[in-house]
């Protein structure tokens, strides 16, 4: 018997694939690099394509494509520490 969570995968799973795609699109990362990004993969400071301007651009893309609004007081480098942190942040925003 399947559980409720198995029948209705948590939104975080969908958000994760969306965030991965946005990261790939914005930074034009090679498919093998995108596929290799794990939850604990560091982002800011670890991916050369991602500097502070690219972070700002990524935030804008997340807002546009996930239909969320990121407030000024949420701008924090911690969001970009790891891929998992970014997915968790996006999932919280999507959930409202």
């Amino acid at each position, binding site marked *: 018997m399947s559980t409720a969570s198995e029948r209705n995968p948590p939104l975080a799973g969908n958000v994760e694939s969306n965030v991965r795609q946005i990261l790939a699109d914005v930074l034009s990362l090679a498919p093998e690099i995108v596929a290799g990004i794990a939850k604990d993969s560091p982002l800011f400071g670890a991916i050369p394509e991602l500097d*502070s*301007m*690219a*972070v700002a651009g990524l935030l804008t893309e997340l807002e546009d494509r996930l239909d969320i609004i990121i407030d000024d007081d949420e*701008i*924090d480098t911690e969001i970009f520490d790891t891929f998992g942190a970014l997915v968790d942040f996006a999932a919280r925003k999507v959930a409202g």
Partner: protein
Amino acid sequence: MAGPRYDCLDAGCFKLPSIIRGPDSGPVVVIAPPLFEEMNRCRNLLANLGRALEQRQIATILPDLPGSGDNVTSSATLPDWRSAFAALVATCVSVRPTYVFALRGGALLTDGGGCQGLYRYSPARSGQSLLRDLVRAQAIADQERTGDKVDLGDYDTEWTKGHIVRLAGYDINPAMAAALSALECPAPAVKLRTAEIDGPAVWRQAEPADSTALAEALAADFVAWIVA
């Protein structure tokens, strides 16, 4: 191909250092360049576009707006950018068929008035959105440097005090911040095409992806549009 030429072109009361490509007669495309750091990231795309159009016997002019690139003007304002660009277009219109290609923030500076067509690619939504990107980038960079989270309102406070704030390498004075905040994409004054062509968002990338294919696609689409 003859390769690029460099000249300082008359634009009203401004002189605009410009990269000029292509034939001396026939249609010319005046490029309204992206603003601030986005221009640096788009430089290769615009060079590729200039070459792709030159191969199609279409000339391009890529000006440095007052205070940007080789155009050393410490007090340039946003109205200066608009009037200088409009004057450059008017100068071209008087001698040959002229079109405007506007990329990102460049789309906010011109309605194409006087020329034969306005072509936009990935136009910036507003000056406010560009300013917000700069503020966010600076906040991220400041936090990275100091370790402390930044209150983005601090930048507004500095402008309120009349101070210049350096954002992502650009000195933004209170007048520029206010003008950007109010800047919207103008309604086109001439026939408009807003291209929907997939390609790398090089203006967002610290290490811009190869833009050769995108430039080729844009040039082909542009030519199809002007002959239609």
